[in-house]
C-alpha cells in the first residue's frame, strides 16, 4: 500500500486511489486551507492558498529530498513516498500573504454579510492570517449585481476562485457565468439577457467560499450560528439527494447538499433546495378532524384529540367494512410498513396499493452527470418493496381506483403528504360513495373536501425514517424540526394505532422489518450516513 508522509506522520492510501495532497493530508488530520480547489470541479490551482512544501522519500534509502519551492497541494498527486509539509515557516508565511492579498480590496462587510460564520476568508484569516493590516486603506464598495432569479452577487467580495464559473461550464453545462476584464479589475458577471437560471443554479452559492454569491431565498433571513443542521434526505424526487436541513427553533431556513458519493456527490437541484417552504405554509392541514354529520358532504370537521383519533379511526374503519389503502410514496419505509400492518389488523383482506406517484415528463441529466428524476417522490421503490411483503401483486394507485370503482371497497385510507396539488375533482369523486374516507395529506384537496377524516401529514424535515431511492439506496434520517402543534407525523399515529408504547422509534420498526424480510436485510445494522444499497444484501 502506498505510504504518504504528512508532517512526519505516515499514512497509507489505497493502491488504486488517486488523491491529491489536500486529500492525503486530510487523512492524517491536517487540513490544508484552500479556496479554488473542489473535488467536483477541474483543478486550476489559482488561489495559491494550498501551497505546501513537498518532497519524496527514497524507497530504498529512506532519504528525503524536498522540492526547493512551494507547490499547490491541489495539483500535486500523493504517491508512494510523497512527503508533505503543511506547517513550516515557509508555508505559514505564504498562507498569511495570500490572506493579506485577498483582504487588500475585500470589503470588510462581515457585520452585514450573510456568509459570516461560515466564510473561509474569515476562518483562514483567524487561523492563518496576519494580525495587522499593512496595505493602504481605501473606502470599499459592496456592489450588488443581479445574476439571476435565485442568486445574487456582491461583486466586490469575490476572491476570483472561479468555482462558480467552472460549475456552470462543467457541471450544469449552461455556461451562464463568466469572468470579465483582466487582472485586479476582474469580476464575475452574466451576459445581459442570459441570467443564471439553470436547474442547478443554487450550487454556486454553496461553492462560493466567501459572501460574494448569495441565495436570494436565504438572504438576511438568519445568522448561521443560530442554526442547527440535521442530516436529511430531499423528498423532491426519486434521486434521494442527501441534504442538511438547517433550522432554528423548528423553523427551516435553508437546505444544503450533503456530500454523498453514491447519490448526489456534492450537488442538489434548485427544486429540492428551495422545496421546503410548504412546511411553513400557513394553509397546511393542522389538527385531526372528523366530519360531524352522518353524510360525508356538507358538514364541517370537528377537531378530534389525537389520543381519541387512535381509537375512533380504527372503530370507523372496522365498522365500514372492506378497506382500501393508498400507501403514499412520500412515506418512509417504516411508516409504510406500519400502515400496512395497521390496515391488515383492521381488515385482514385490506387492499394495499402504492399511492399516487407524481411524474414530470422525463429525467434530466446534466453534463457533469447529475440527474433530476422525473419521479417526484422519494420512496416509491421503498413503498413497493414494503407492500410486496403483504401482497406480491403490489397494486398501483390506478389499481386502487379500479378496485374502488368496481365496488370492492367500503372505506379508503389515502395517505399523501404531497407538497403540491395532486388530485383533481373527478378522481376524488371515485371515493365519494364510500362509508368512510380518510384523507391524510399536507394541503386540502378535492379529496379532503369529501373525506370523513381529515388528517395532517408531515413535511420531509419533520419525518424520521428511511427512504429508498431510484438506485435502490436506502437512506435513513432523523427528524430535523418538530411539526406544528396539532400535527402528528404519520409515523407517530401508526405507531400508536399498533398499540406500541412510548415515543415512536423508527429504528425499532426498521430492525423488525429487516429481521423479517430478505428485501430489507441491509437495514438490520447501523446504516452509514451515505446510505446502503439494498440489493447487495438481497443477493445473499
Amino acid at each position, binding site marked *: 500500500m502506498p505510504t504518504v508522509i504528512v508532517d512526519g506522520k505516515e499514512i497509507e492510501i489505497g493502491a488504486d486511489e488517486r488523491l491529491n495532497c489536500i486529500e492525503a493530508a486530510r487523512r492524517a488530520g491536517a487540513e490544508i486551507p484552500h479556496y479554488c480547489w473542489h473535488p467536483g470541479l477541474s483543478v486550476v490551482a489559482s488561489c495559491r492558498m494550498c501551497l505546501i512544501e513537498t518532497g519524496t522519500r527514497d524507497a530504498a534509502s529512506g532519504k528525503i529530498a524536498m522540492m526547493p519551492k512551494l507547490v499547490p497541494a491541489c495539483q500535486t498527486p500523493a504517491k508512494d513516498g510523497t512527503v508533505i509539509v503543511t506547517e513550516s515557516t515557509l508555508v505559514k508565511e505564504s498562507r498569511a500573504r495570500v490572506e493579506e492579498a485577498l483582504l487588500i480590496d475585500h470589503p470588510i462587510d462581515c457585520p452585514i454579510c450573510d456568509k459570516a460564520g461560515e466564510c473561509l476568508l474569515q476562518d483562514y484569516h483567524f487561523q492563518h492570517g496576519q494580525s495587522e493590516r499593512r496595505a493602504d486603506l481605501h473606502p470599499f464598495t459592496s456592489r450588488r449585481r443581479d445574476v439571476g432569479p435565485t442568486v445574487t452577487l456582491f461583486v466586490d467580495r469575490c476572491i476570483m476562485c472561479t468555482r462558480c464559473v467552472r460549475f456552470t*461550464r462543467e457541471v450544469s453545462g449552461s*455556461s451562464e*457565468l*463568466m469572468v*470579465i*476584464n*483582466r487582472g485586479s479589475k476582474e469580476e464575475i458577471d452574466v*451576459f*445581459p439577457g*442570459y441570467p443564471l437560471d439553470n436547474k442547478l443554479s443554487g450550487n454556486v452559492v454553496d461553492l462560493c467560499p466567501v459572501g460574494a454569491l448569495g441565495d436570494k431565498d436565504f438572504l438576511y433571513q438568519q445568522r448561521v450560528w443560530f442554526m442547527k443542521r440535521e442530516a436529511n434526505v430531499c423528498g423532491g424526487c426519486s434521486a434521494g439527494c442527501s441534504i442538511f436541513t438547517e433550522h432554528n427553533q423548528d423553523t427551516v431556513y435553508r437546505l444544503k447538499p450533503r456530500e454523498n458519493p453514491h447519490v448526489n456527490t456534492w450537488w442538489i437541484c434548485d427544486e429540492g433546495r428551495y422545496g421546503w417552504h410548504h412546511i411553513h405554509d400557513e394553509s397546511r392541514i393542522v389538527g385531526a378532524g372528523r366530519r360531524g354529520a352522518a353524510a360525508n358532504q356538507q358538514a364541517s370537521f370537528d377537531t378530534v384529540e389525537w389520543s381519541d383519533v387512535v381509537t375512533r379511526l380504527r372503530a370507523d374503519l372496522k365498522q365500514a367494512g372492506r378497506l382500501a389503502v393508498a400507501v403514499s410514496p412520500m412515506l418512509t419505509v417504516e411508516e409504510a410498513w406500519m400502515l400496512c400492518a395497521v390496515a391488515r389488523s383492521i381488515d385482514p383482506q385490506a387492499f394495499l396499493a402504492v399511492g399516487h406517484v407524481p411524474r414530470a415528463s422525463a429525467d434530466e441529466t446534466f453534463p457533469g452527470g447529475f440527474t433530476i428524476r422525473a419521479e417526484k417522490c422519494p420512496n416509491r421503490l421503498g413503498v413497493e418493496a414494503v407492500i410486496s411483503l403483504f401482497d406480491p401483486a403490489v397494486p398501483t394507485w390506478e389499481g386502487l381506483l379500479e378496485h374502488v370503482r368496481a365496488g370492492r371497497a367500503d372505506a379508503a385510507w389515502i395517505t399523501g403528504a404531497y407538497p403540491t396539488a395532486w388530485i383533481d375533482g373527478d378522481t376524488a369523486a371515485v371515493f365519494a360513495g364510500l362509508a368512510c374516507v380518510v384523507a391524510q395529506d399536507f394541503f386540502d384537496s378535492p379529496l379532503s373536501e369529501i373525506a370523513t377524516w381529515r388528517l395532517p401529514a408531515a413535511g420531509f424535515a419533520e419525518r424520521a425514517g428511511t427512504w429508498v431511492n431510484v438506485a435502490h439506496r436506502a437512506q435513513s434520517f432523523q427528524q430535523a424540526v418538530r411539526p406544528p402543534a396539532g400535527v402528528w407525523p404519520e409515523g407517530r399515529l401508526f405507531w400508536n394505532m399498533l398499540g406500541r408504547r412510548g415515543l415512536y422509534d423508527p429504528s425499532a420498526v426498521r430492525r423488525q422489518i429487516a429481521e423479517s424480510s430478505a428485501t430489507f436485510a441491509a437495514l438490520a445494522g447501523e446504516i452509514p450516513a451515505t446510505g446502503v444499497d439494498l440489493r447487495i444484501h438481497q443477493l445473499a
Partner: protein
Amino acid sequence: MIAQPRILTPEMVAKIEALAPRYPNRRALTLPALHIVNDVLRHVPLQAVVEIAHMLGLAPAEVQDTLTFYQFFHQEKPHGRVRAFVCRSISCALRGGDQVLDHLCHSAGIQPYGTTPDGSLTVEPAECLGACDFAPCILANDQLLKNLTPESAEARLRDLRTQAT
C-alpha cells in the same frame, strides 16, 4: 433566439467560416471572429457577441469572457475612425511618450481611452508597441508614426483624421 436584424453581415459570416478548416474546433474561431467584426464596425456590440456565440456553438458568456479579457474591443459605441495607440512603456516614456499622450488628450479635449465627439479620434495608452527604435511612437490604425514630439504627433493625427472622414 435572434430577434433583431443581424449585425453580422453575410460577408463577415463568410470570412469567419472561411477560417473554420484551419482549426479542429469552432471555439478557436472566437478571436478571429471578434477581429472580423471589429475591423468593420470599430466595435463589437453585445448583439454581435450573441450572434458569434450562436455561430460557434458557445454561450454568449463564453465569448464575452474572452472579449473583455483583452481590454481591446470597444462595445458600447465605435471607437474613432482613427484609433491612436500611444505607447507608454519604458523606451517611449524615456523619450517623451507620456508628454505626447498628455498633449494629444489635452488638445483633443478627451481623457485617455476617450473618443472625440465627432467620432474622428480615439486616443488610448498602449503598452510597448515594439517600435522602440522609433520612440516615442504611435500606432494609428495600421500606420506606425515614429520619432514623435507632442506637436508632430498632433499634426500627424490631424492629417489622418482628415483623411479618414
